[in-house]
Structures are given as structure tokens and as C-alpha cells.
């Protein structure tokens, strides 16, 4: 490949004195100075969080108010910093959601360990755990920084997706059972 040597352009007299360039620099900084500032004054002004932001992991309800988590513990296993602790629990028979396999008796995410990698969300078969827009978790003690089940649902709220996977499954099972009798 041919090497092309580009001659450096000789500076003109005024360029060699630097003075016009200094003046131009001063003009630039002056313009910058009279413009409004760029800084966000944080506690009062909040940044706009884009969609798909991976903030604090939370648990969500479905539109019927059922906990989506079935405590399969996949997230607990996949979690790289081992921040998640799940105690699975049975659903009593009289519960309207008794047809669902299980639900977490306790679900704890240690936010001092969490690295916001989003693998829990990725791995969840039930779409029950979501990294949402909340980005600043603070607390005075270590205990405060562990989100328990109640807090996780408070943060998570309801996911408006109307899949109702378990209800459909139950309906299908019932239909099959019914069909079987025929």
C-alpha cells in the first residue's frame, strides 16, 4: 500500500501568534457561560428513565392480583452474586389460586449483593421478576437493604399482561377431565 505523506500546512503569521485562536476560545467559553447550565440538580430534578431500564428487581402480580412467582427458584440458582433467597411454600387448598403449583413463602433480594445483571428476569419462566425503573435504593442499615416479599411486591405492582396461563391450564385440565367422562 502506498504511503501518502501529507504535508503539514504551514501556519500563517496570525496562527503562529495564537492570538486569534485564543480570542476564539475565549468567545466559546463566554458563550458557554451565558447559556443555561446542563447540570441536573438531582434530588429536586430527576432524570428521565428510558423504557427497558434495568433498575431494582421486583416481583409482580398478574391483573387478577395473583402472585406470578411460583417459587421455582431458578432465579435463586442463576443469580451470580447469590442475592436471592426464596423459601417456597404450598398454597392451601381453600385458596382461589390453589391450582397454581406453589408460591413463595418468603422471597428476599439482598440489594447490597445485587449487581442488576437482569439474569433473574431472563430466566424466570413465569415473568414474575422484573427489573424496573427504580434506581436508587438507600437505607441506614444492612437489614433495610434486604427487600422482603412485601417490599418487592410494593415496588413491583401489577403486570398488565393478560396471559392467565394458570387459569387457562386449569380450564384446559377441567375440559379434558370433562371430555374424558364423555
Amino acid at each position, binding site marked *: 500500500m502506498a504511503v501518502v505523506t501529507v504535508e503539514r500546512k504551514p501556519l500563517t503569521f496570525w496562527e503562529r501568534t495564537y492570538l486569534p485562536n485564543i480570542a476564539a476560545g475565549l468567545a466559546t467559553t463566554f458563550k*458557554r457561560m451565558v447559556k443555561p*447550565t446542563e447540570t441536573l440538580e438531582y434530588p429536586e430534578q430527576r432524570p428521565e428513565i428510558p423504557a427497558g431500564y434495568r433498575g431494582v428487581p421486583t416481583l409482580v402480580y398478574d391483573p387478577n392480583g395473583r402472585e406470578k412467582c411460583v417459587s421455582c427458584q431458578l432465579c435463586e440458582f442463576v443469580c451470580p452474586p447469590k442475592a436471592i433467597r426464596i423459601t417456597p411454600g404450598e398454597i392451601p387448598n381453600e385458596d382461589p389460586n390453589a391450582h397454581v403449583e406453589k408460591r413463595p413463602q418468603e422471597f428476599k433480594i439482598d440489594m447490597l449483593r445485587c449487581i442488576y445483571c437482569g439474569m433473574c428476569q431472563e430466566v424466570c419462566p413465569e415473568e414474575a421478576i422484573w427489573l424496573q425503573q427504580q434506581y436508587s435504593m438507600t437505607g441506614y442499615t444492612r437489614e433495610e437493604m434486604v427487600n422482603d416479599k412485601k417490599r418487592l411486591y410494593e415496588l413491583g405492582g401489577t403486570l398488565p399482561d393478560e396471559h392467565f396461563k394458570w387459569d387457562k391450564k386449569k380450564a384446559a385440565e377441567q375440559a379434558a377431565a370433562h371430555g374424558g367422562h364423555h
Partner: protein
Amino acid sequence: MFDFYFELPLLLRLLLQGTAVSLVLLPRAPPCSMAERKISAWIQGRPGPNRTKPPIAGFLAPLGLVASIPVLGTALQKLGIYQLAADGGKFTFKEDPIPGHVNKFYFVLAPIASMIPALTTVAFVPFGAYFDAAGKLVPVALTNLDVGLLAVFALGSLGVYSLILAGWASNSKYPFLGGVRASAQLISYELSMTLSVLPVFLWVNAPGGQGTLSLFDVVQTQSQPGFWGGTWYAMTMPVSAFIFLVALFAETNRQPFDMPESEADLVGGFHTEYGAFKWSLFFVAEYAHMIVGSGIFCLLFLGGWNPLPWVSFADLAHWLHFADKPLLMGLIAIGLFLAKVGFFIFFFMWVRWTLPRFRYDQVMKLGWQKLLPLSIANLIAYALVIAWIETR
């Protein structure tokens, strides 16, 4: 109103005046440092310090009361005024460590020595003028020596000793380099600075003139009637003004010439080992030098307290009918003068946050190989021109 004052013995009066004028500069440093922080912030698109707010029952109760005034208090808070009190408190009450390896006596002496030239040079600077009872324009100044400018230069050049001393007494590598750089830089730029003002005084002391180096007389020659009488020397001698300004930046160790403390290669330069109150004294001295230097520049090249070129202050006083009120006149003159000085303080900061720092060899090269020949050529050119004008 001031009768009791004039009944005091002359020596005591002079002592009081001297103390008063010297102390004028001392409280100028905190606002300057605040201005520096705000201007740097604005240039960088930040708001700068705007949070500090004194509690009303705090130890500075008056400040607290001011802060509680609805609109004004908030505006002052946004300007960071209360930050000054916090900074001052911090510098005063913070632990002031003396490292074990330093030469203790000189280490403590250096910041104190930095205050001496900083506070004394102001004694030779006239701030304004007023008509006395006889209708003669007299300067508002502590002294009006006919060697005024030389005195300022002489005392100003003593300022470098504190830097050398600080660098040497710190007994460690970077401060030492900073001290050596300070002395070399001072010697290099003092020459161009002195040579750059010579054309001004050649013109002021042209044959038939009075033979003076007084700063007041320089302003007087810029406030004469007529087109040439009313022009400021910055217009007739732009090269001189430019050299003086550049040398002033170098002598006050301001960016882009702040070699003695360039934090990129010398950590903190001469003040690396200093902290708290002693450190702040160096900065009071630096700002005092800046103020006095800008004052000298305004007097020499920008017509001192004259409001505009071709509009002398005495004319203004006659037009606006305050010529017969010496106190008011003096205050207005001081106000005009300080406004110009204030602009230059701003200019110093503006340049600091615009230009990158020179390399040390570039500083030396600029001083000896560019500015010095330029100032000599400038002097010769103006000497010829003035001789031609005078012998015409």
C-alpha cells in the same frame, strides 16, 4: 463629621490610614475565590456551589436572617454567597498539619511572608479622585509618590520570596521544583513588564512634562481635553498593554502560566505540603496580587477612574453636579475604578478556564525569545515616534 479624626496626631493618623488601606485587600480574597468557583462552573455548564444555607440560629445569625428573606435569600444562596462563610470556617478551624520533614521555621514563615507584599503594594495605588476645597483634583490614595510605579514593582517582586521559601522549606521534591520555577519565571517576565510600561512614561514625561512615575499623573494625562488627550493608552499603545497583560499573568502565576503550582506535573507545586489556614494565606496573596496588578493595568492603560475614553471623570462630575461633594465624588471614582478592576478579575478567571497550561520550556521561551524582543522593539518604536512628535 470626621473632625475627631483630623485632631489625632499625624503619625497615628497615617498609621490608621495605612492599616485601613492594607486591610482593604484582605477580605477581597474570599469573594474572588467564590467568583472563581462560580465562573469556572458556568463556563463548564454547571451551576457551581448553590446549596449552602446558614441555619437561622447558627453561629452567624445575621447571615441566617438574610438567608430567610424570601427572594433575596434564595438568590444569594444560588450565587453561593453563604459558601464563603463555610469555606472561611473550614480554613480557619481545620487541622493545620506541619509535616515532619519540613524546615519548620521557614515553613511557617513563608505564608506570612506572602502577605507582606500582597498587603503593602496597595498603599501606592490610587483608587479614585475628588476635587478638594481649592477645586484641585486630588487622588484617593494612601501615598502619591512620584516613584509610585517603581514602588509597586519593587514590593510586588518581593512576593516571589514566599513561593521560593515555601518550596525550599517543604524539603521535598515537587515543592522545591515549584519554588525554582517561581524564581526563574519572575526574573524572566519582570523585564518585559518593566520595558512595556516605559513607552507610557516616555509619553507622560515628554519634555516639558513634570518628570514623574506617579500612577495618578498617568491617569491625569489620559483625561485631558481633546482627541489625543482623552484617549486611553490601551488604544495608542496596544502592544505595550498586551505585553504588560501577559507579563501580569505570568507574575501572578495565573493560568496559563501557573508553573509554580502546575498540578499536572508538580502535584501542587510550592504549596504541596501546605494545608488549611497557611494554604489559604497563599491564595489570599495570589488574589491580592491579581487585584493590585489589574488595578495598575487599569491606571496605566485604561484611564483609571475615567468612565469612558474622551469622557474624563472631572467632566462627568461637572455634568452630573456632584463636583462639590468630595465624599460622593470619591466614592463614585472608586466605584468606577473597582468596576474596571472587577472586569479584569473576571478576565483572569475567564482566561484560566479557557486556555491550557503552557509547558515550562514554552513559558521560558515565550518570556525570553518572544516577549522580551517584542517589548524592546516596542520601546524603540515608541521612543522614535515620541521623539518625532516632540520635535515636530
